[in-house]
């Protein structure tokens, strides 16, 4: 990467920077509609986050205090450097991807522009109930216009809606730290996520679901690029590249192509690359061992309470009372200050292991889904994979599936309901 950048002569870079700052002024005006930018009003949000952390200092335990102080310091630094960063990053991202309402689909992303067009923009309903602006109609009030998981309803939900901008997805067929396949996203849209506020959109026409899947990917990629630019803003040499990318016309295009090439398509961590390889990272499912289900459940129980280590989090009674992080799942995985841009003003939520005795298993509940989850662990919430041979995971699947029925004690029904018999 450094090699690429060193090609650019300093004098040219200076000119480019000047032009870019002028251009970005115009750009700023354009993006003044706060809801288009992924980082809507970040200044206020960071400030609120600082305030919240300050307030939590009083009640925090001693060992936490140091962490909190560091966080505050980082945030304050972030706040100081923000306006300039924000201006630049927003301009570049808008130039590359457009706004969520008027998306630009880069060929490098491999997304289908037609589908995205169906999902983006304001809702338009006609008399037959066909609509454009599907995302606005179905998703926006939780996931937010920019897919930042901060729509007006979001704050009230437990758990909070997914912030697509991190590219983290919990329920998928691929491995940990991998992107989901289209089928995975489609399944979530169709089946909903049991145990959360994400409802099923099964009855939407297949074309509309596909359009929404494509649009979610678009928002995710756009947001991740934005986050990446923020994160690596101060890296050596990147500033020059960014400055180039802010140019209009062909020169700017070239620089943006550079960004895509250098920053985002990196085989290991690049945004584009990870999305493209998702289909190849599907976790293999080994055949089910041929034992009776009773036996399998018994074995599963032994693993659960034994070498699987499940009991440590899910508790002695598998009711999810083993431990609780009193942070929300976004906080838990934030690694640097910029991630605080995610809904920092939302109140903390307890991140609890699932109560497995409850009839609802969160997320898709086909055998194969459970297998993959138990085999891989769950992204974004930190459920680790148990260290057991792949075929034994099936026993665990059977045991977990049997848990709600093991204690099948329906509560008393109301007396007035004479109809129930």
């Amino acid at each position, binding site marked *: 990467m450094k090699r690429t950048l060193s090609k650019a002569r300093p004098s040219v870079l200076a000119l480019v920077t000047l032009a870019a700052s002028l251009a970005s002024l115009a750009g700023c005006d354009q993006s003044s509609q706060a809801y288009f930018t992924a980082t809507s009003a970040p200044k206020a949000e960071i400030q609120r986050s600082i305030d919240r952390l300050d307030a939590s200092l009083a009640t925090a335990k001693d060992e936490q205090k140091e962490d909190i102080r560091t966080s505050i310091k980082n945030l304050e630094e972030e706040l100081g450097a923000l306006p300039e960063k924000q201006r630049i990053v927003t301009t570049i991202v808008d130039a590359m991807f457009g706004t969520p309402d008027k998306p630009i689909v880069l060929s490098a992303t491999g997304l289908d522009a037609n589908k995205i067009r169906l999902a983006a923009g*304001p809702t338009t309903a006609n008399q037959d109930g066909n609509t454009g602006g599907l995302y606005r109609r179905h998703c*926006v*009030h939780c996931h937010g216009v920019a897919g930042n998981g901060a*729509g007006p309803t979001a*704050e009230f939900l437990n758990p909070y809606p997914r912030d697509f901008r991190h590219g983290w997805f919990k329920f998928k067929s691929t491995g940990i730290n991998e992107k989901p396949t289209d089928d995975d996203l489609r399944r979530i849209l169709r089946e909903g996520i049991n145990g959360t506020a994400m409802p099923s959109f099964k009855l939407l026409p297949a074309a509309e679901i596909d359009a929404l899947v494509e649009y979610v990917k678009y928002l995710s990629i756009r947001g991740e690029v934005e986050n990446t630019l923020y994160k690596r803003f101060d890296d050596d040499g990147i500033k020059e590249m960014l400055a180039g990318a802010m140019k209009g016309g062909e020169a700017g295009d070239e620089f943006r192509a550079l960004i895509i090439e250098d920053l985002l398509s990196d085989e290991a961590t690049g945004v584009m690359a990870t999305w493209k390889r998702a289909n190849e990272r599907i976790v293999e499912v080994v055949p089910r061992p041929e034992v009776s289900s009773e036996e399998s459940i018994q074995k599963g129980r032994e693993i659960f309470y034994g070498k699987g280590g499940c009991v440590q989090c899910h508790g002695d009674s598998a009711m999810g009372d083993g431990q609780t992080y009193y942070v929300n799942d976004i906080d838990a995985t934030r690694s640097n200050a910029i991630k605080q841009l995610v809904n920092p003003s939302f109140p903390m939520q307890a991140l609890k292991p699932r109560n497995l005795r409850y009839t609802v298993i969160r997320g898709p509940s086909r055998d194969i889904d459970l297998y993959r989850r138990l085999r891989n662990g769950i992204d974004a919430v930190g459920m680790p994979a148990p260290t057991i041979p792949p075929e034994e995971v099936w026993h665990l699947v059977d045991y977990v599936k049997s848990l709600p029925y093991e204690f099948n004690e329906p509560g008393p029904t*109301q007396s007035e309901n004479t109809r129930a018999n």
Partner: protein
Amino acid sequence: MSSHALGDHGHAAHAHDLHDHAAHGHQMSFIGKYIFSRDHKIIGLQFLFSTLLWFIVGGLLALGIRWQLAYPWSKLPILGDMLFSGEAGQMSPEFYTALFTMHATVMIFLVIIPILAGAFGNFLIPLMIGADDMAFPTLNMLSYWFMWPAFVCFGMTFLTAGHGAGSGWTSYPPLSVIESAAPASGMAQTWWLLGVTFVGVSSMLGSVNYMTTIIQMRAPGMTMFRMPMTIWGMFITAILQAFALPVLTAAGFMQLLDRVWDTGFFVAEGATANNAAAMSGGGQPLLWQHLFWFYSHPAVYIMILPAMGMVSDMIACFARKPLFGYKPMVYSISGIAGLGFIVWGHHMFVSGMNPVLGVTFMLATMMIALPSAIKVFNWLGTIWGGKIHFTTPMLFAVAFVSMFIIGGLSGIYMAATPVDIFIHDTYFIVAHFHYVLFSGTAMAVMGAIYFWFPKMFGRMMHDGWGKVHFLLTFIFLNGTFYPMHLLGMVGFPRRLADPYHYETFAHLLPMNQFMTWCAIGMVATQIIFAINFFYSMFYGPKAGRNPWHANGLEWCAPSPPGHGNFDFQPIVYRGPYEYGSPETDEDYYPQWHPPKQGESSGGEEPKPH
């Protein structure tokens, strides 16, 4: 607190003679006169202005609902950018729930009930029965001042997270109790419950006072069966309020405790939503519905009986003919009140209540249609053979009858349990209660404002503009509400932010757009009324004591009446509806006119004073 009661003289030239009347004799500060006034007339006007103000709020909330139904998820005009910058100006779904919840709440608790009982009840009761004030003026003042905490509480619901309480005006648990069940079930719902409690206290204070006044403070000769129908309506309403409202207050306290202390009266064991901690203890969600409707069904009569009374007075006056069947009217009002206590279950036919109970409630409900039918026939009988003056109040009063027929008849569909299975919670219901409450009660209220305006402010409202106001309102309200019957027949459910998801209802969008534009027209029309109202208050022609040549006792007092109401001892010689009586040459024979040539119109002789 004694002061002179003044006639029409002396201060006639002064534009603010109302102020002078009240001030005369005692120099009271503005606050003493208008804020902490114990004069029933001032309190009545305080109620009138407050409720009309809230009427505007309620109307605008309704427009918000209509906008979403006509143009779902499109940018909300004017307010969109301000309220919903996070989602490009389109309304959030929880805001929609708050809209219809607060529309109903405001209209029922802050407009219709207080404008009938609070404004007209306060203003008219002492005047029409010949008393100098309410039995307990201070209590009366308190009944108004308990509305203000309610105003504040309901206002607060808008300011807390979630933009307003959103469990419907029925506040059904568990949605209203489990705090995390919906954004609007948070603090907003607590404020809402507190608001309802304050309204309850206010109504209770008012109603016991009204009853005492009507029982103990009638003018000599004013027997129970010489009271105008308005007073009968107010009297029965007061009884309903006094006996039904405490139940809601108790239930409201319990719901409040459920929310604040998790007592769980109305939440089933283990109930949870949105991954909140499960409730312990096993209450019953249906219990709330029983308690709520035990109040709220009588409440629908609280919202119509005074209107029926006022309409009876207006129709008799402008048909220049005695009210047809006065006693049957009284009995039917009382019958409605009595039956009103045993029909609450018809709101719960599909709620999971024991279906056998449903049958009993259906029978009772069918029977309660009867007194309403009798009243309609009697109004027709009054008009029949009369000498009808088409004044603005009369137009509104007849509109009440015409619209109440629709509202009453559509009620029969709901009373029929099997039919209710289909139309329950659809727009058929919405059509029904808007025909009764808006096309009915609100028409009567508007008529009553035109009718008693001269008594309130000493000046007449402009009749021509009044008629324009009437005509446009009448057309637009039918355009808004009548098609709701058809929507209901398709099964179009209430309270859905976007019903067009469903194939069954997708084709109803154009009709909803038509209704929305009618609703906008209806709200806009009220601007005419507002201008007429305020213009006439200051510049309308002087009214004199009895501009309509009516019989009621209030018309013998000065307009507006001074402190103490009457400048002579009123004595009642006959019933209130002796229009066109052969005993007199004029076509009316006021209650206070002594009989000519020693004739007696019946009733006991008044005592000398």
